[in-house]
């Protein structure tokens, strides 16, 4: 259980039988009155954000949530399958649960899967991934300074903007938080 001083941004809590992450917290107290802890929480399953207030004497349950590294195996179109490389246990997630990570999924690569009470609920890609360009306009030699760019489709299907000198078939490093090209991978 978490006391009001432990309800901090980033803590994961269970409220109304669901897992949430705290995105903002404050202690408020009117004059000589009852003290409250006000938190803004984001649902770890569907992403909605709500506000809750607690008496400062109340405790809040910690969510039974762990993040574990898993290998992406394949998708059957309905589910996306991951495997725990240690135990070889497999979990399946829907496209909603996979969320933005969908853009960066490459078979055999490792991703962070969030388990709530042992059930997979979310996937997060590493901050940087290296992916091959499957389709883009031919490169313009020598243009490394103009800042102009062109769209490139990656092997995962995602489209990112790349500089003009980059070619089809090359491997590039992408920042998954911004969806932006970082550099050509060696």
């Amino acid at each position, binding site marked *: 259980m978490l006391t009001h001083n432990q309800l901090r941004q980033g803590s994961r809590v269970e409220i109304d039988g669901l897992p949430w992450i705290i995105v903002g917290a404050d202690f408020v107290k009117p004059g000589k009155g009852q003290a409250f802890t006000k938190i803004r929480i984001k649902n770890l399953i569907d992403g909605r954000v709500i506000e809750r207030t607690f008496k400062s*004497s109340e405790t809040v349950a910690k969510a039974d949530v762990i993040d574990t590294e898993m290998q992406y195996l394949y998708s059957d179109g309905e589910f996306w399958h991951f495997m725990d490389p240690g135990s070889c246990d497999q979990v399946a997630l829907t496209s909603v649960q996979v969320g933005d990570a969908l853009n960066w999924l490459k078979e055999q690569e490792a991703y962070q899967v969030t388990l709530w009470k042992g059930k997979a609920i979310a996937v997060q890609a590493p901050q940087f991934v290296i992916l091959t360009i499957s389709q883009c306009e031919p490169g313009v030699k020598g243009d490394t300074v103009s800042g102009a760019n062109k769209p490139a489709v990656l092997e995962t299907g995602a489209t990112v903007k790349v500089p003009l000198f980059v070619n089809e078939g090359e491997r590039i490093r992408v920042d998954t938080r911004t969806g932006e090209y970082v550099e050509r991978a060696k």
Partner: protein
Amino acid sequence: MSGSVAWQPAATWLTLRRRASVLRQIRAFFQQRGVVEVETPLLLSAVAPELHQDPMVCADGYLQGSPETAMKRLLAAGCGDIYQIGRAFRCGEVGRLHNPEFTMLEWYRVGWSLEQLVQEVAALLLTILELPASVGCCGSSGQLTVWRYDEAMRRYAGVDPWQDSLPQLAEACQLPGDQQASPPTGLDRQGVLDWLMVQRVEPAMRAQGGMIFLTAFPATAAAMAEIDPGPPATARRFEVYVNGIELANGYQELRDAEQQRLRLQEINRQRRLAGKASLPIDTAFLQALQAGLPPCAGVALGVDRLLMLAMQAERIQDVMAFPVAAG
């Protein structure tokens, strides 16, 4: 946690110099008005218990949550007008506007009414803060913005704090389609009113801006204030907010020793009901009231929050050299 910068002060040097000048301004203000600075102990063996405030316990007693009882002993001894700037301690209070150790200014005016004290609080704030004359402070009419507690609750929370039942108050907490919080369960009537104050009235004060005095609190929230018998009975108490931040709390001071003793005992009873320890009551304070507290009005003001407003800081931690680490 980034351990690498943990030794450095939280506030800039510019802010800490402003703190020094605000303290100087406060002392000059009272010197000019003939109010004498006093010091009373931070370390106490007995207190004036509060339901929603826990004193810090140490091996030798308690660290003071307020200098109120000691200063009233001085008043009963005939000292006249006094003020004190000192540290106060409150267990577990950490947030954007709270640090468990903070600087409090408290002063008493003998023979004054609450209304006179309200004027003096406004005068002090106007010497330190630059507030636009049009909003909430001595404009051309010289009028202060005063909200009666019940008017503010009616207007911004849609409740009648004197008449509405607990279920009626609870219903007012739910706004249609509201993504915002509903109040925690198990609150009593005053608890729901406190919640509405935080969720509905304080945001309205922030939106209006400027200096707002909130007066005529419910008798159940009288603390150490005299009660105006009404009806409805109200506490002769005020709070002042600037830009929605609560800065100070003042009373027409209760002088009746027996009533004060009953109130403190009742608080201890409620503390036990809430699963908290009852606290040793300061009997020297009660004896002082018995001997005779002169009619007076007094107020306590958070100096750190005043500095926040002066510096337009977002968090109380930004105006302290070394605040307790907040979440």
